[in-house]
């Protein structure tokens, strides 16, 4: 049995013990609960409940950390050249990781939002941002992700991460942002 499975078993046991420890109504005879055993025959737990709680908390924290790491990978921003929407070679590894996470978690759905720097009109940059979002979606679907799981949107130049009027800021602002919109409560790491 793996460590994770053992902890799950212990958690289940703790729950049963907790339920059995509940004060009985003196006016009623408890009905048998499927899978439960009389209190008098309850086996001695392998570990004390306090330790089990601690381990469970640790495991939950580890799982959340694993999940957060996947969410972070999913949310990694990719960047674009000026007035371009082709995915940069530097960003393909990031998109590859996202594709793997999406394929390992069929319930997961994401939104890709394209952004632009402040040069050019708002309208043109809304269209450019959409093309950047579509470019990322196309890349992911070519890797086998079902396109219906990927929404695309554009905020153009409207929401800069760095409002400074210089090239360094412009480079940060020309980006796709990725956000899980469903199925991210529990995530399985890709093999």
């Amino acid at each position, binding site marked *: 049995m793996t460590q994770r499975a053992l902890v799950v078993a212990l958690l289940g046991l703790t729950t049963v013990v907790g339920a059995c420890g509940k004060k009985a109504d003196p006016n009623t005879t408890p009905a048998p609960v499927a899978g439960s055993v009389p209190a008098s025959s309850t086996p001695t737990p392998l570990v004390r409940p306090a330790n089990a709680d601690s381990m469970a908390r640790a495991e939950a924290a580890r799982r959340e950390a694993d999940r957060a790491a996947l969410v972070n990978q999913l949310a990694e921003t990719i960047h674009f050249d000026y007035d371009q*929407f082709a995915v940069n070679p530097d960003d393909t590894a990031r998109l590859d990781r996202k594709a793997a996470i999406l394929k390992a978690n069929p319930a997961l759905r994401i*939104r890709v*939002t394209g952004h632009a720097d*402040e*040069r*050019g*009109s*708002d*309208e*043109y940059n*809304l*269209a*450019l*941002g*959409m*093309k950047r979002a*579509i470019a990322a*979606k196309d890349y992911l679907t070519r890797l086998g992700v079902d396109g219906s799981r990927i*929404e*695309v*949107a*554009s*905020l*153009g130049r*409207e*929401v*800069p991460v760095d*409002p400074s*009027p210089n090239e360094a800021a412009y480079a940060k602002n020309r980006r796709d942002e990725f956000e899980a919109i469903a199925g991210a409560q529990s995530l399985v790491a890709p093999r």
Partner: protein
Amino acid sequence: MRPVPFLQLAALATLALVGRASPAGAQDIERIRLGINYTAGARPGVLVMAGPGLDSIRRIVERDLAFSDRYEMAFLPDSLGRLTAPLVPATLKPLGVAWAVELRRIGAGVEVKLYDIAAGQLRQQGVRPLDPAGVGESRLAIHRVSDELVTWINGGIGIAATRILFKADEIGTRRDNGIWRIDADGQNLVRVSRPGGLVVSPAWHPDGTRFAFTEIKDYVGALIIQSLATGTRVTVPTTVSGTNNGASFSPDGSKIVFGRVAEEGTDLFEADVTRMCCAHRLTTTGKYAANLTPTYSPDGRRIAFMSTRAGSPQIYAMDADGTDQAVLVPFDAGETGASYAPDWSPDGTTVAFGRDAAGGRQLFTWQVGTGRPAKQQTSTGRQNEDPSWAADSRHLVFRSNRTGRDQLWIVDLETGTSRQLPTPGGARLPAWSPILRGTNP
């Protein structure tokens, strides 16, 4: 500016003597030297004087006429522009101005008189209900008087009684700060969109009482039509998916054409805003192409727009029903700079747009149907774009970063004169109103 001749100063000193019924001493002469901003030239000279209590109105009219860029204005300080006795046109003849405007209180109104100085005659007069304070909404009535004077003098179209809508953002953060309006003379700044959402692309309804804009919420940009008087809003049907932007009303106000940014591509659509229905697609060029920023010709029969269908953004046009799509402004592939956001002049003769040239983006104009190359109209700064025509078809308002941040500028294409509209924070996407009539807010 060349020095004002002594003879002209002496003439005005005489005028001051008549008007103020007080001796014109050395101090008056000095004030004249400081106050006069008149240089005789090709354009007719104009002087504006007013009776007591009308200093504010006089200054507004004086500035409106200057901003028309049609006249050489003799700017006067209040002390010299104030009359206590009727204006005597003959006293102004040595000054060299062609026209003089006299403003005087009559009952609850203001009498406006226009004198032809060369002929020594009164040419036009009328009484108008004006608020002497000249603040807030009452300014519009004063601007209308200025426009009447332009018509009286030249038979031309004045643009003082107009306003400009624009999108603002905050200083520093550049966060969205809504849509605002400002009088064409740079006064009377008012926010018109409510807080919340991101807003872009204000566009005037031709009746001047409403405007359309895009409000982006939850990644969808809906087209809203809002009353300027009441703030009442209506969402244009079928604009609740994608990001619908860059709207333009048909000249009769019955239709609205706009770009929709969506996964299947960025294309132009048209909707009926009289019946509030029936949006339909006008272009189809694929998901990696964009067709944007449409503008109707003033007869309503054609629509110019930007398209990336051939790669580089360029200016195209089609019939209003979407047929006969073709290049409008000729370009050489690989040579001509990318061209953006056209606006068709109210007189129908010209299309203005932004074009990449010499490392920056500059305003260009192209005479419709002439086959001549487009003419570059700006050269200051590296980002000059999103032009919007004034009703006189000679002024453009546009966005420029020539001061280091996005601001609104106005250029007169006949004289090359430009001025900045004073706006807080960043300002872009200007839309110049039609002439605002008496029923406008």
